[in-house]
């Protein structure tokens, strides 16, 4: 599916966490929440309102889509699109750049 809108840069924390959670495979809403909690070591607790609001906007931006997996009709599984993976890669590259600059300055200050 072609992206309707470009991914916002930088990504919001919620979007970044969801992309990260989906980077290892398709998941349903509850599994995404648990993965986000695990990835952030319990520091980020995402509620259903934030999660599905973000998924809605991410689907509109072409970053995620429903996977079509139907082991339980009450659950919808989501997976990354190519654009979603590219947005995640770009964001992580941006983070690395920021961290490199910060570490350089920190080392210089010491």
């Amino acid at each position, binding site marked *: 599916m072609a992206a309707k809108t470009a991914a916002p840069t930088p990504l919001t924390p919620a979007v970044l966490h969801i992309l990260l959670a989906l980077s290892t495979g398709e998941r349903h809403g509850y599994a995404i929440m648990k993965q986000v909690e695990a990835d952030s070591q319990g520091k980020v607790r995402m*509620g259903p*309102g934030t999660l*599905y*609001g973000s998924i*809605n906007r991410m689907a509109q931006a072409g970053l995620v889509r429903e996977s079509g997996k139907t082991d339980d009709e009450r*659950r*919808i599984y989501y997976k990354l699109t190519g654009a979603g993976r590219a947005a995640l890669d770009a964001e992580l590259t941006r983070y690395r750049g920021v961290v490199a600059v910060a570490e350089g300055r920190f080392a210089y200050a010491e």
Partner: protein
Amino acid sequence: MPSETAIRRYRALYSLLLRLYPRRFRERFAAPMAQTFHDLCRERIATNRSLLSLALWAFIETSGGVFMENIMHGAQMPKTMLRVALGALAAVMVPLVASRLIPDWNWPPQAFVVVYFLFFALGMAYALIARRMGTWSYKAAVGLALAASFALGWGNMVHVADSGNPANLWYYSVLVVGIIGAAIARLRARGLAITLFAMAATLALIALCVPTGAPPELARNMTIGNIAGVVIFTACGLLFRHASQVGANPNEILPPA
């Protein structure tokens, strides 16, 4: 199993909250959201933690989502909000001008801000509820019921402050009946008719049973106010009943524009 019963109850309430999402969002996400909430509840039960705190957190968090999605999805919403904001500004001019003309009227500036937001909230409530059904009687009943409820709440607040009689707090139960009834009726005309009749009956009962503790002059004014309130709430009930009868489908709820 008691925990399963509790989960089912919380989930039913949560599903009611999900109904406040815009239709397109609701059709796509309400079922998985309810399931996710259910999964969270089960996790709580499994770890012997409180369901109530989870439910409160989820309800508050999701209410924020409801607000955001309604703002973002409602194409008409910015225009409606602008109209309501301007209407509330015009309405707040009345006490603002009156406070300049009437010597004893000494509201602090923040009181006008509070009143402005109350008017704005009232206007938005009307805009969001009245568009759920196209008939004039439904719209008129919503407007009249909101105005009467606002007048009752405001008047009672002033009266309790003046008289210092906490028994008059009972009058707020009329508003509680209205809020619970509207939620149960899901804003459908037939259910709202019953709700408004219940509000009228509650007000009449309180007026008869609760001692006002007011001097004769004030008690007479309160009696007149109570009679007016009962008449208005009954009229609203009749209007809602009319709306439920003239609609092709009495329980019709038009999707938000």
